[in-house]
C-alpha cells in the first residue's frame, strides 16, 4: 500500500507514547511538557503541502514514502573506515564532534580546545534538566511556522550544546560530523545543535551531513540554533556532498548581536530532498549577515534554499550570494527574503542569485522577496538563469579544450566565486577538489 504523508504524520502522533516510554525520561522533567506542546503544534500543522507558500516548490509529501520512525535505540554500530573517509577533510585541524544517527559519539570526537568552549551532548543535558537548554527550547521563534521545527522539538534526542565564553577566539573550527549509517528500518532522526557565542569572540563551525545508506529511507531533521553576542565574528559552513538519495531538512535560526558579523555558507550537491532554511535576525545595530550558497545538482536532486534576513534594528548590513548549477533532472529552489522592520533605517541589503541550467530537464524556481517597512534603506536583488555562454565555450574550444572540458571549466569558474569566500584553507581546497571532481575536470 502506498504510504502518504498523512499516514506518516498519524503514525508519528500515535507512536509518541511508545517513543516516550523508550526514552525513560523522568516524568517530572520539564522536557516532557515541552515535547507534548511541540507535538500538539506539529499535529495541528501536519506536513506542508504545495498550498503553503513557503513550500510551493517543494512538495514534501512526495518524498515521504515510508513510515518513518524516530529512532529510540542507542546502539548504532561503529562507522567503518569507508564511513570515516567520507567525513575526512584533508589537512583540517578541528574540534571534532561526531554524531552517528543523531547520537553523540565521544570515541570519534576530539576536542582540541577544551579550555576555550563548553560542550555537552544534548541527551545528557536533557537528563540533567540543564537550565540553558530548557530556556532555549522555550524560546523557539515561530516566525516561519515550520512543522519540522516542532517535529524536531517533540522527538529530539541528542545534538551538540556548545557555549563559547566572552573574549574567546577559537584557533580551530568546530567540526560537526552528522553521519547516518545504513540500517534496516525507515528512520527519522531529529537532531538539535544549540550554539551560544559570547561577546568579542571569533569562531568557525563546519557542519557536514553524510548519509552512508544513500537512500531516501532516512530523513534527517536538523534544527540549529545559534546565538551570537556583541562584537563577535562567526562563520558557519554547511556541507552536503554525501547525502546520496537521502532526505534532509535543516532549519537554522541565528541571532546576531551588536557590531557582530555572521557568515553562512551552504555547499549542497546531493540529496533526493534537501531543504536548507536560514533565518537570520540582525538584532543588534551595526551587525552584518553574509549568506553564501552554492547548489550544484544533478540526477534527481532537489535542493530548496530558503533564507530570511531580518533587519530588526537600524544600521545593519546584509549581503547574499547564492549560485545554482542545475544539470539533468535536478530541481533547485531559491527563496530569499529580505525583511526590514519598521524603524530599521539605514539598512543596506543585497541579494544576488545567478543560476546556470545545463540541461533541459533541470528546473529552477527563484523567488526573491522584499518586505521593507522603513524608508531610508538600500536594498537590491537580482536573480538570473541561463546557459553557459556560447562565445566563451567557442573561445576555449578554439584553444584545444574539448566541449565537455570547456563546459566544466566555465562551470567551475562560475562556482568558484562562492568557493573563494571560504576562509578555512583546508576546507576551501576540499571544496575545490569536490567541485572539480564532480565536473570531471582533468589536467
Amino acid at each position, binding site marked *: 500500500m502506498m504510504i502518504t504523508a498523512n499516514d506518516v504524520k498519524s503514525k508519528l502522533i500515535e507512536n509518541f507514547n511508545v517513543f516516550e516510554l523508550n526514552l525513560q525520561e523522568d516524568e517530572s522533567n520539564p522536557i516532557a511538557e515541552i515535547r507534548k506542546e511541540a507535538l500538539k503544534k506539529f499535529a495541528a500543522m501536519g506536513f506542508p503541502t504545495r498550498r503553503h507558500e513557503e513550500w510551493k516548490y517543494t512538495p514534501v509529501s512526495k518524498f515521504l514514502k515510508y513510515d518513518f520512525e524516530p529512532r529510540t535505540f542507542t546502539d548504532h554500530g561503529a562507522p567503518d573506515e569507508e564511513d570515516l573517509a567520507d567525513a575526512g577533510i584533508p589537512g583540517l585541524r578541528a574540534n571534532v564532534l561526531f554524531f552517528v544517527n543523531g547520537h553523540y559519539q565521544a570515541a570519534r570526537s576530539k576536542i582540541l580546545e577544551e579550555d576555550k568552549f563548553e560542550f555537552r551532548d544534548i541527551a545528557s543535558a536533557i537528563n540533567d534538566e540543564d537550565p540553558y537548554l530548557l530556556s532555549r527550547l522555550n524560546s523557539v521563534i515561530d516566525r516561519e511556522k515550520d512543522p519540522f521545527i516542532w517535529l524536531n522539538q517533540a522527538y529530539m534526542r541528542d545534538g551538540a550544546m556548545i557555549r563559547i565564553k566572552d573574549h574567546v577566539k577559537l584557533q580551530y573550527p568546530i567540526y560537526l560530523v552528522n553521519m547516518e549509517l545504513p540500517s534496516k528500518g525507515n528512520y527519522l532522526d531529529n537532531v538539535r545543535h544549540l550554539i551560544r557565542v559570547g561577546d568579542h569572540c571569533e569562531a568557525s563551525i563546519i557542519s557536514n551531513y553524510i548519509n552512508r545508506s544513500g537512500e531516501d529511507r532516512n530523513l534527517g531533521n536538523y534544527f540549529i540554533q545559534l546565538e551570537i553576542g556583541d562584537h563577535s565574528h562567526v562563520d558557519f559552513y554547511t556541507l552536503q556532498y554525501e547525502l546520496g538519495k537521502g532526505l534532509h531538512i535543516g532549519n537554522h535560526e541565528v541571532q546576531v548581536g551588536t557590531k557582530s558579523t555572521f557568515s553562512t555558507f551552504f555547499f549542497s550537491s546531493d540529496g533526493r530532498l534537501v531543504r536548507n532554511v536560514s533565518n537570520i535576525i540582525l538584532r543588534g545595530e551595526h551587525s552584518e549577515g553574509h549568506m553564501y550558497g552554492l547548489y550544484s545538482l544533478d540526477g534527481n536532486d532537489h535542493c530548496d534554499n530558503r533564507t530570511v534576513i531580518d533587519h530588526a534594528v537600524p544600521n545593519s548590513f546584509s549581503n547574499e550570494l547564492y549560485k545554482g548549477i542545475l544539470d539533468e533532472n535536478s530541481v533547485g529552489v531559491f527563496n530569499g527574503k529580505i525583511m526590514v522592520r519598521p524603524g530599521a533605517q539605514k539598512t543596506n541589503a543585497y541579494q544576488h542569485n545567478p543560476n546556470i541550467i545545463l540541461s533541459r530537464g533541470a528546473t529552477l524556481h527563484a523567488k526573491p522577496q522584499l518586505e521593507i517597512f522603513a524608508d531610508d534603506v538600500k536594498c537590491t536583488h537580482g536573480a538570473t538563469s541561463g546557459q553557459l*555562454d556560447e*562565445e*566563451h565555450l*567557442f*573561445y*576555449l*574550444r*578554439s*584553444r*584545444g*579544450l*574539448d*566541449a565537455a*572540458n*570547456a563546459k566544466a*571549466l*566555465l562551470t*567551475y*569558474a*562560475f562556482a*568558484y*566565486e562562492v568557493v573563494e569566500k571560504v576562509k578555512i584553507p583546508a576546507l576551501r581546497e576540499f571544496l575545490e577538489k569536490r567541485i572539480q571532481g564532480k565536473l570531471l575536470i582533468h*589536467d
Partner: protein
Amino acid sequence: MALLEINNLHASIDGNEILKGINLKVEKGEIHAIMGPNGSGKSTLASIIAGREEYEVTKGSVLFEGKDLLDLAPEERAREGVFLAFQYPVEIPGVSTANFIKASVNEIRKHRGEEPLDAASMMRLMKEKLALVEMDKSFLSRSVNEGFSGGEKKRNEIFQMAVMQPKLAVLDETDSGLDIDALKIVANGVNKLHNEENAFLVITHYQRLLDYIVPDKVHVLLNGRIVKSGGKELALDLEARGYDWIKEELEAGAPQNS
C-alpha cells in the same frame, strides 16, 4: 600539398550568403594578408576556418594539410595546428590565464602523443612567451582577459599563439583598436614566430599593420569573393586609393590578377 587550400567556398548565416566562392592557397612559410571593406566577409572566413558553428557552409571545401578541416570540431582544428586570434577576445571571469594556457597546451601535447608538461617547464614556456609580447607575469594569475585593456587582450592572443605554436595562425583584425606601440609589439611577436614551417593569414582593414608584418601575398575580399590578388604593393595601392577603383575595374570586366 598546400598547408591551407580553400576551394569555391560558399557560406551563409541565417540564410544570407556571405561567402560566394572563395579560392585561396597558403603554403608553409607564407604570410597572406586579406583586406577588404567592412561587410566583405573577412571575419566570416576567419570564423569558418576556426570552426565557429553558426555559419553554414553550403558549397566548397577547406583542406588543411590535405585533410578536410570542415569535418573537424573547433578543438580538433586547434590540436591540428590552426589558431585564431580573435577580433574580440572574450573575458572569462574565474579562469586564470595560467590554468587556461596549461589546459590548452596539454590538450595539444596529448594530441601529438606527448607527455603533459611538468609545472616548471610550463612556467618556463609561459615566461619566455610573455617576454615576446612584453607582458608581465602577473597576467598569468589574472582571469582570462578580465579587465584587460583592448591592447592587452590582443597581446594575450599573440601570447597564446606563441605558446601553442600553430602551423596556421589566422589574425582576425588583430590591429583594430591598437595604438602604435601595441601594434609594434603584436607585429614583432608575429615576425619572431614566423618560420619556414608555419603560415599566417592576416585579416585587416588597414594597411598599417602591413608596415610591420610584410605579406608575401595580398588578397582583396569584396562581397564574398577574392576579387584581386597581388604582392605587398597592392596593400599600399589600397591604402592610397581605397576600394572603389577595384569595384570599377570589376564592373569594367578587367582581369582580376595584377
